[in-house]
Structure formats: structure tokens, C-alpha cells
């Protein structure tokens, strides 16, 4: 049975197709997002310094984060990247246009260095943001500076390099959205690869009068995973053969694709899983000394915190996982190299990591979401009351059921991770050997889940 047999192409509905191919709906969403982004920067710089009353802090780290981790990524994969405001000014400059390919833009259009064509820089960037997060997430001025830095780097990348180099290789957020987008029940794929092969011009990559060549440097005809597809929809506009589909598919379909598994993505999985564990302890735990250590950058306790943070992410977790993989490999008699097994099985951590972040976000977001209403009414802390909600007091939502939701999400993630481990093992081994190969990795996933349960619902 072909993969298409398990998919529902939303573009078969003319109204959906029209809405996605038309540039205006996407542009309107992008402008709304850009306006919010700019208000977040301005409020961070000149608004109230009280984080829980500052638009930048509340909208970026509570509202946006909750929507991203609980809805956007699990359902739409890289859907956020389709309307993300950060690369827009640079992209508009590069294209010389806001809406469509009309004018000559401004960019040196350099190629990105080959040795940097991976997500290691994104891994480093996310780790740095996570390491300093206790300050970034609570200080409006620092949040504004970080957002400005993202904007500056994105514009610089667009002016110097071709297409969306910032999104593809530099954005700290894009790295994990890409990793977790493999789980999403949506995808953009070609309907018939033979049509692409026969189409010598490849307008999906080179661009045409109808749209830009893939800003993410992908050839849609060879697309098998969501990881680097920014769902910008340009290929829907440039394909002259109507050969693109926007599919609804089964969850985690990309994890069943053996090709294209890489060490940089594997480490992204460890970084995200480790950060979820640490955030759960620091931000949701009762340990005041740990919070103070994470916040007091440059102090002795912070250095210990930083060493522990980096040690867990780049040392303890990968080392334990390597032991599990090595044990499974030895017990099952697998012929695969240890490195290949390590990288391959690391994709087991993709569902485990996403659900860990969802469980963390459930508690953090529901407890703090009521801060959104006052800052909507008074985004700059200037005493406004635009929507009559400036004086709405803080009230946590659903605190009675959040722990049960977290438990359900964590169990679902564990099941998904274990099923993925079994499926990955079965790619190269017979059923019984594959099970033996997968069992230690499943044990690792159990340990991580127990740790998360201990931090979040104990």
C-alpha cells in the first residue's frame, strides 16, 4: 500500500486550497504576529519591569509558549514557522517585496558553508537560551534584548545569505520545532514523485512568477520528513502541475522513515529532554536554592547549576542512553555499529521529549495564563485599559485536573516512545531480536518518565 493511501489531502477541498495558496491569509497572520513581536520588544524596553505584568514576558513566555507546545507543534508541526515574525523583515528585504515575487531584493545571496549545514548551531543556541532562561523568562528588558538579537541575526542572515538560512540553521526555536514536527499529523508532500522527476525546470526549488523557490532549501520532490519543511506554502504556489498535497496523516509518520537520521538531531532530542527535566525541577519544584542558583548568573551556585545543566544534557543522559543501546545491541546480536544504533534509537526520545514539554507546559501555562488578560488591556504598562481587563486578578486555571492531564500525557509519551523503539529495532532485526534490542531503551524511557512524574505530579 502506498503512503498516500493512509493520507487525506486537504487540498482536495477547493476552499482549503484557495485559502492556503492565496498569500493574503498568511500575510495577515504574519503581520499580526509581527505586531505582537514588536510590541513585546517595545514593552520589554519601556514597559513595566515587573515580568508578570509585562506584555513581552507574558505573551512570549506564557501565551506563545503554551500555544506552541500544546497546540501548534503537536498538531501543525512547523505551522508556527509559516507565520513566524522573526525572519519576515529580512525576508522582505531579501525579496524586495512583501506579498509576492515582483521586485529585485537586496541580498548577497551567499551559500551557507557546507560544514555548517546541520543543526549544531541551533543546538548550541537553544542550550544557551535554556541555560540563562531563569533570567530571560523573568526580566522584560532581557527578553526584549534576546528578541532583538533574534531579529538582528535573522535580518543579517537574509542580507548575506540566500533564502531562510536563519530559520534553517540558526533559529534556536526552529531546531526543536523541526524535530518534533516529525510527530505531527500534518505534512506537505508531493502527490507523485514521477511528475516531479519529469518536470525539468523544478520551479518549486528555483521559483517562478507565482512564488519563491523553496526558502528552506528543500526540493519537495524528495521530501520524506517534516523536519526542515517550514510549511511556507511556496511550493503549493510554484508547482505548475498541481502536484503538492497538504496531508492529514497518522501521528509520528516520519519516525517510521529510516533514512535521514543524524547525530545533530539525536543530540537535539537529548537537549530537549534534559531541558524539560531541569525546567520541571527549577520552575515547578519547591526548591528555592535551585531557583536562586539558576537566577544568579555568574555566582558560584550558578556555575554549579550551569555545570549540572550541561552535564545532564551532554553527559549523563547521552551516557545512560548509550549504555542502554549498547546493552540491547550486545544482547540481541545486532550487527549495526554502536554509533548508528545510538543515533537511530535516539529518535525514540522525540515523542518522549514532546510529551515531557507538554506536561511541563500544562502546569506552567494554566497556572499563569490569567496574566494574559491584564497585559492585553495594558500592553505597555502605561495605565491603559483597552479591553476592560487591566484589573483582572491572577487566577490559576484547572489546578485540580492539571496533574491528571500531565500523568496522561507522560504515559502516552512513554507508550509512543516504547512503540517507536520497537519499530526502529524491527527495521533491521527479526521480531524477537528486535524486542531484546529495544528493551533497554524502553527501560531508559521508563526511568525518564518516572523522573518526570516525580517532578511534576509527586
Amino acid at each position, binding site marked *: 500500500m502506498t503512503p498516500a493511501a493512509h493520507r487525506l489531502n486537504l487540498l482536495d477541498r477547493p476552499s482549503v486550497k484557495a485559502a492556503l495558496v492565496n498569500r493574503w491569509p498568511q500575510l495577515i497572520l504574519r503581520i499580526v504576529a509581527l505586531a505582537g513581536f514588536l510590541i513585546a520588544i517595545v514593552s520589554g524596553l519601556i514597559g513595566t519591569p515587573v515580568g508578570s505584568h509585562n506584555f513581552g514576558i507574558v505573551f512570549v513566555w506564557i501565551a506563545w509558549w503554551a500555544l506552541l507546545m500544546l497546540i501548534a507543534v503537536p498538531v501543525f508541526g512547523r505551522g508556527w514557522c509559516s507565520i513566524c515574525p522573526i525572519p519576515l523583515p529580512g525576508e522582505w528585504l531579501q525579496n524586495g517585496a512583501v506579498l509576492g515575487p515582483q521586485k529585485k531584493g537586496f541580498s548577497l545571496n551567499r551559500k551557507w558553508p557546507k560544514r555548517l549545514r546541520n543543526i549544531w548551531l541551533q543546538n548550541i543556541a537553544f542550550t544557551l537560551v535554556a541555560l540563562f532562561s531563569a533570567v530571560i523568562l523573568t526580566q522584560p528588558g532581557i527578553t526584549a534584548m534576546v528578541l532583538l538579537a533574534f531579529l538582528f541575526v535573522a535580518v543579517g542572515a537574509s542580507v548575506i545569505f540566500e533564502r531562510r538560512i536563519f530559520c534553517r540553521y540558526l533559529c534556536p526555536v526552529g531546531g526543536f520545532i523541526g524535530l518534533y514536527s516529525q510527530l505531527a499529523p500534518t505534512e506537505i508532500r508531493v502527490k507523485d514523485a514521477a511528475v516531479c522527476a519529469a518536470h525539468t525546470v523544478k520551479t518549486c526549488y528555483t521559483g517562478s512568477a507565482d512564488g519563491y523557490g523553496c526558502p528552506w532549501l528543500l526540493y519537495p520532490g524528495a521530501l520524506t520528513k517534516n523536519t526542515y519543511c517550514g510549511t511556507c506554502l511556496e511550493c503549493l504556489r510554484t508547482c505548475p502541475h498541481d502536484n503538492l498535497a497538504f496531508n492529514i496523516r497518522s501521528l509520528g509518520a516520519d519516525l517510521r522513515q529510516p533514512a535521514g537520521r543524524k547525530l545533530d538531531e539525536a543530540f537535539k532530542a537529548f537537549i530537549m529532554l534534559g531541558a524539560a527535566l531541569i525546567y520541571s525541577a527549577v520552575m515547578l519544584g519547591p526548591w528555592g536554592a535551585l531557583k536562586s542558583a539558576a537566577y544568579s548568573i555568574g555566582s558560584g551556585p550558578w556555575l554549579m547549576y550551569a555545570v549540572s545543566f550541561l552535564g545532564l544534557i551532554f553527559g549523563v543522559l547521552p551516557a545512560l542512553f548509550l549504555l542502554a543501546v549498547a546493552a540491547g545491541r550486545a544482547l540481541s546480536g545486532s550487527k549495526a555499529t554502536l554509533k548508528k544504533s545510538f543515533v537511530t534509537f535516539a529518535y525514540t526520545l522525540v515523542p518522549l521529549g514532546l510529551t515531557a514539554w507538554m506536561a511541563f507546559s500544562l502546569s506552567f501555562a494554566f497556572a499563569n495564563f490569567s496574566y494574559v488578560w491584564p497585559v492585553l488591556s495594558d500592553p505597555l504598562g502605561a495605565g491603559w485599559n483597552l479591553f476592560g481587563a487591566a484589573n483582572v486578578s491572577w487566577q490559576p486555571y484547572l489546578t485540580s485536573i492539571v496533574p491528571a492531564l500531565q500523568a496522561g500525557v507522560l504515559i502516552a509519551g512513554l507508550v509512543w516512545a516504547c*512503540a517507536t523503539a520497537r519499530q526502529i529495532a524491527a527495521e533491521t532485526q527479526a521480531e524477537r531480536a528486535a524486542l531484546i534490542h529495544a528493551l533497554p531503551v524502553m527501560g531508559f524511557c521508563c526511568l525518564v518518565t518516572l523522573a518526570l512524574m516525580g517532578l511534576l505530579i509527586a
Partner: protein
Amino acid sequence: MPSVRSSSRWMVIGLIALLLAVAPLPIASAPPTERRFRIEASSFHYTPETISVNPGDHVTIDLVATDVVHGLYLDGYDLNVTADPGQTTSLSFIVDRSGAFRFRCSVTCGALHPFMIGKFNVGNNDLLWRSIGLAALAVVAVAWSRPR
């Protein structure tokens, strides 16, 4: 088409899951008593960080703010109390829900305010043990099943 043996296996797993999720746990709890706790709130932590009680206890919390105004909102119970610097405010209630609950500062008190959290443990944390049981069962079920 699933075999009879396979169907039976999944029915057994489903039944065990149902039992783990809803069956009462045979754990006796201590008889209810009067409990009084003094909790000091200072930026950005509570002392003690965790308090433990039993179901049915009549609990009084004396909240003392040591630096700036702090609050204490108890998740699951929807109770809230605030204390001015140097002042003590009391909150009394009967513990009628088991489990682990967070209490958190309800008055903006500084940068780490959203993360100023303590824990209130009531008796046995059924949710945790049931979750661990369900997780273990789920892993066994996955190991038992055939990969797709």
C-alpha cells in the same frame, strides 16, 4: 484479523488498566488531627518547602512574609491568603482531597514570582502510584505487541 488469543490478551490488559485507574487502594490513613504550620515566605521560596498532612486533618497555616508582600494560593483547594511584610496571616481548612498539591505565591513579589512554589502533600499520592502502575502496564503491553 486479530486472533482470539490476541483479543483475550488485550482484554486482560484493558481490565488491569481499569483496575489500576479506579480501584480503591488498600492503604489505611492516620486518624484526623489538628495540624498547625508556620510557613515563612521570602523571595522566592517558602520555608518549609514541603508540608505533609493526612486526609481529614484540620490544618492551619500561619503565613509569615519576611521581606515583601507574599501570598499563598493552594492548587486543588482554590484557597488563597496574603501576608504583609513582618505580618502573619492564618488560613484554616479541613483537608478533604488526597494527593500532591502545589502552593504558589499569589502576589507579584519580584522576578521569580511565577516560580515561587511549595508542595502540600496529603496522605498517599494515589495519582502518582496509579500513573506508575499504568505506565508499567503500558510498557509491558507495548513489549507484548507486534510492531506495525
